[in-house]
């Protein structure tokens, strides 16, 4: 039964890849802590140096589908209830969401390695240790 469930999850994981950029950014924003919608927008903007800005429509459209796909879930806890508006909803990444984000990161890493092998990258990025 559990094996069947794992197999189903693996299929679902494959079905979700490749992730849309907005979905991956949201998963990355939630990887280290729970955040509300505006917090996610700010984190993404800050992390990408302002190159990626999620508008409210993109953000909440993605959040709605990510909740349905089980990538994230609503959190009951408030990081700091005294400092925050109680109406805000906080979101946190699920274990499945972590696995999907990891699989997508590996996929992208493979692409980068290919680009590096074909000398498409100008800079010398960190290379894998020998035998890795």
């Amino acid at each position, binding site marked *: 039964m559990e094996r069947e469930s794992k197999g189903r999850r693996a299929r679902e994981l494959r079905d979700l890849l490749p992730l849309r950029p907005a979905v991956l950014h949201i998963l990355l924003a939630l990887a280290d802590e729970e955040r509300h919608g*505006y917090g996610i927008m700010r984190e993404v903007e800050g992390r990408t140096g302002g190159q990626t800005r999620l*508008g*409210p429509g993109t953000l909440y459209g993605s959040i*709605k589908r990510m909740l349905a796909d089980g990538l994230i879930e609503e959190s009951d806890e408030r990081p700091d209830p005294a400092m925050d508006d109680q109406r805000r909803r906080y979101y946190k990444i699920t274990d499945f969401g972590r696995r999907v984000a990891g699989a997508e990161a590996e996929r992208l890493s493979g692409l980068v390695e290919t680009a590096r092998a074909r000398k498409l990258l100008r800079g010398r990025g960190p290379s894998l240790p020998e035998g890795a």
Partner: protein
Amino acid sequence: MSRSERVYRVLLLAYPREFRRDCGVEMVQAFGDLCREEKRRGGRLGLARVWIRTLPDLAFTAFVERSRAMRDRWLFMLVPLAILLGLTIAYVDSSPGWDDTGVSAAAVLGASGLFGVLYPVRPWLWALAVGVWIPAYGIVREFNYASLLALVFSFAGAYAGAVVRKRFVPVR
């Protein structure tokens, strides 16, 4: 609530009702936070920049959400159509003069496949909607359990259609 937030709340009417119900309050809240922050940083110009960024996002995502809502409604239109087609095939197949089982099987396969292509998310639904009527009629009227084979064709067609669709036209 600021004037910008009030205007934005009205503009949310561009989204389907269900989407507004699920996300509308939070979207206005996030937009309000964004406006306050940008106004604090850049004054009126900052606020104008927020609007310039937000309007295309609103237009595009409202279109996307409306399209998704239409697709869900489409499902409710397609199910009766699939049932009707399945009943028609079963009716023809059970006619006294009809003995071409191969054509019936091909019709079940083709019809299920077509629905699988059109809406690949639930192939089992199309397999049952199209394929269940021949065995139902065969078993109830003639105790013909061999007619259950029709379900094999309907499931094969529906899943093949879904695979074809997912392979060549991304669904997400």
